[in-house]
């Protein structure tokens, strides 16, 4: 990399990143403005700023506060832990302003989670990637100052919590805190299932230092694979996951299993979304017994998704760059998933600042702009078809939405290919 010519005077941009305060303060203020604006819009407009999901969480929290099950709220499909975290939102003091603040406490929590995730990104970038702090903050700003991220958390979507969990997991692993990593991994999987894909990458990465003398036989290689840290991580994360599930099951019974986990397996609601499988799922949900068409792609959809995100990508990339591998895994998992909405994009967006330094997208500006442009256009094309369906009532399922989802899927695969190439060079 050639050094850019030193500028005569430090620009405003450089001073902004020189110290941590301006960045974190700006990120916090950005979220406070969004929060207050949201309160104003909710109070004055019939169109609400607050996400419907937030009303689901807070209703569930209210049920819990009254000693009921959070699953008494229809469409609550999360772990009870989330409802517990939001218990303050169910509190009523009688003071109007205090009550509004209490009701917003969940959003404040999600926004704080954003900030902590950003701070962890900075930590990882400086410690593990050896970037100077100012540069690290510049990359962390992609997350911290991203209006999409700030909007999602201040509207009350819980995806921001995933961001902090995953960055904390990565930080714990990279800094050798195996027990903490196990706890975080177990908890994250309990919270949102998908972080299980990180387990194989982390396990594989943990053996990255080549042994002094390469073992010769397969048996000794296999034995060499089983190391104490690996066993520790596996045991702690499994124990955390199992204990959490057992305790939730003992409190809420089969309802907990049904809504938190089984729902995602048995769901047949296939309201249009970005997934390439969407049209096929609609079709097959109507004719479940029709087998004349031979093998149905959606019945084996888990194969390409899990092979890529849990086997091939970890094996090929984890030892070269764990953060990059995790980004590629998440990207593959989301792109090949049977359901895909824009909230899922946050799952990989949080890992982007860790991958971007030195990536071809930044090295080659044209490539970077092309990728960003295609990613946005891919969604825009789909959204246009979705708008025609949802609001104008035009039957755009076929070919419009279907083709748009396949195009977007193609764009995602291409971007994933570039990411893989980049991480592979590290």
């Amino acid at each position, binding site marked *: 990399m050639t050094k850019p010519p030193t500028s005569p005077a430090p620009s405003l941009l450089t001073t902004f990143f020189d110290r941590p305060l301006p960045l974190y303060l700006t990120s916090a203020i950005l979220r406070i403005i969004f929060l207050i604006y949201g309160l104003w819009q909710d109070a004055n407009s019939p169109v609400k700023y607050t996400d419907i999901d937030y009303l689901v969480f807070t209703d569930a929290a209210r049920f819990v506060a009254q000693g009921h099950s959070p699953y008494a709220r229809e469409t609550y499909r999360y772990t009870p832990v989330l409802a517990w975290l939001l218990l303050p939102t169910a509190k009523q003091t009688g003071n109007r302003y205090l009550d509004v603040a209490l009701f917003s406490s969940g959003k404040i929590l999600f926004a704080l989670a954003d900030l902590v995730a950003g701070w962890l990104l900075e930590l990882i970038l400086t410690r593990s990637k050896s970037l100077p702090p100012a540069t690290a903050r510049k990359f962390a700003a992609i997350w911290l100052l991203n209006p999409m991220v700030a909007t999602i958390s201040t509207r009350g979507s819980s995806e921001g919590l995933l961001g902090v969990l995953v960055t904390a997991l990565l930080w714990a692993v990279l800094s050798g805190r195996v027990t903490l990593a196990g706890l975080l991994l177990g908890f994250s999987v309990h919270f949102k299932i998908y972080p299980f894909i990180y387990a194989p990458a982390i396990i594989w990465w943990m053996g990255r230092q080549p042994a002094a003398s390469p073992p010769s036989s397969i048996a000794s290689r296999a034995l060499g694979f089983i190391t104490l840290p690996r066993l520790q991580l596996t045991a702690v994360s499994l124990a955390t996951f199992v204990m959490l599930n057992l305790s939730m099951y003992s409190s809420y019974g089969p309802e907990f299993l049904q809504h938190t986990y089984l729902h995602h397996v048995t769901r047949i609601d296939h309201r249009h979304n970005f997934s390439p499988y969407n049209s096929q799922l609609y079709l097959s949900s109507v004719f479940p017994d029709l087998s004349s068409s031979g093998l149905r792609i959606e019945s084996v959809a888990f194969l390409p998704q899990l092979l*890529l995100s849990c086997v091939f990508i970890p094996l*090929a990339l984890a030892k070269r760059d764990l953060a990059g591998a995790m980004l590629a895994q998440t990207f593959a998992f989301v792109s090949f998933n049977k359901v895909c909405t824009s909230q899922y994009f946050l799952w990989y967006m949080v890992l982007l600042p860790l991958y971007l330094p030195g990536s071809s997208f930044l090295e080659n500006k044209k490539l970077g702009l092309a990728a960003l442009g295609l990613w946005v256009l891919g969604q825009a094309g789909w959204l246009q078809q979705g708008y025609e369906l949802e609001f104008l009532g035009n039957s755009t399922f*076929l070919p419009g939405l279907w083709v748009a989802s396949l195009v977007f899927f193609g764009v995602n695969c291409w971007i994933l*290919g570039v990411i893989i190439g980049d*991480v592979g060079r590290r």
Partner: protein
Amino acid sequence: MRERITFIQKLGDSLDPAEVKVDRNVIKAPDVQAVREDRLSLALDELPAELQSLLNGLHELHIRWVSPIAYEAISPLLARLPPGFHVFFTPGNEIKATSTKPCETLAHVFGPQVSCSTPGDSFTALPNDRFSHSAAFQYFRPLDTLAPFIKYAESQLCSDKSCTDRLSALSSASTLDISYDTISHSLRITATWPYQRQKVHATARPNSRTEVGILSGDKPKTLEPHELGISGLLTVLGQDDKPSVAMFTFPSRHRDAESSFSAKFLSPTGLHPTLQLSLSSSKPPPGVAEDTCTPHAYLTLPNTIFPDKYQLSDPLFLASKNLTALRYVSSPIDLEAPDYVLKSWGSTVLLELSPPSAAAAATTAAGGGEWTVEIPLHLRYLAPSFTGYATVNAPYPAVFWACTAEEGTKFPNNPFEKVNLGYDGLFGPRTVFWHVEPKPVRGRELVNKVRVPVLDLSKAEWVNVGTAVAVLLGFLWVVWRLGGVVFGKTKKAAAEEKKKQ
């Protein structure tokens, strides 16, 4: 068997008793402009075996069918329901909520459009905490014809032409009510025909008591505000040789609000159609204390179209639609599932409407004039079709002002009383329903059609293969890139290496 035939004319119209000819079992009079109501009470053993065994096993069953064709209601027959086929059912000792018999019998009697599995699966539970008189379960289906019922009844009940003639006349009826409960132990069938020119001619059937009334609305000076009055001529065939003059007044739960409304979906409907009600008057019914009255809309929505109770809970949102509150919604309503996997018939909704305030109404040109209400609804995914579209029929709601009568007012059963209408059980016992007359936007039907986009099967041929190929290509591309990382150097790295050398 007991039979009652009543012709009801409007206030002020009446027939000269001298024009009515009674000859033993036959009554004849000149045509009248009237509503006709026929009421038949049958003992259980007069019914087909299939119906006997069903009714014997259950506690109560009320069927209310309303024609989709708009009709004018004449006092005292003022109660209204959304057009379609309503069932109110309470299980008994033998016919339980899990029994398939009620649904099988209903489909057999009323035709395949009435499709359900068991009351437990397909019906919705009615709240039983308020008034003991409401049934346990409710069911509804849009149904625009009684033809299958007429055919069934002709084959099961008739042995002569006069019987089939009477039954086939049902094809022009505006309502049909069938009620049974274990206490009365008899089946009561009531049909009404719309206000039009009616032939007055009836013959008593052997072994049955037939009463014929030729009545019209009346307002005697002694009439209390909560009462209705009718007067006219009554004749019991085979017993009276001339009609006797009669007049009665009785308290009525159902009244005429003397205003009208129409309903239509705002365009474009999309997947979230909004039903707009246009009401002709924002003033409460005449002669009623304003503060005791609020307008309501009662909707019975088939499964394909549903309300979101969470959306209908925000006061600001409701106010922007001229709604006050969601007073009742049947539960559960799945907010996500496609139509074709649901067993339940749909949902009932009771909304309190928010008329413009008196001050706001005064500023408009026609004070207390027309106003609108918007009811946001949602469509389910429906099964694919070969045109890419499907049609959902949404019946008009019943719209009424619910007013609370003075303390101490009693509403004993009157001869034209209608109970078990679904919404009556959601109000207190002193509530009077002042009905707003539904008027079609165009045509004669009180049903709105929504065009729903669905997956177009004629274009679906390549979906399975196309999706598979796309996913496979994407997968292979990613694997190829991974292979490049594992088994070789990427081109760029190789090129860089070359450069270094």
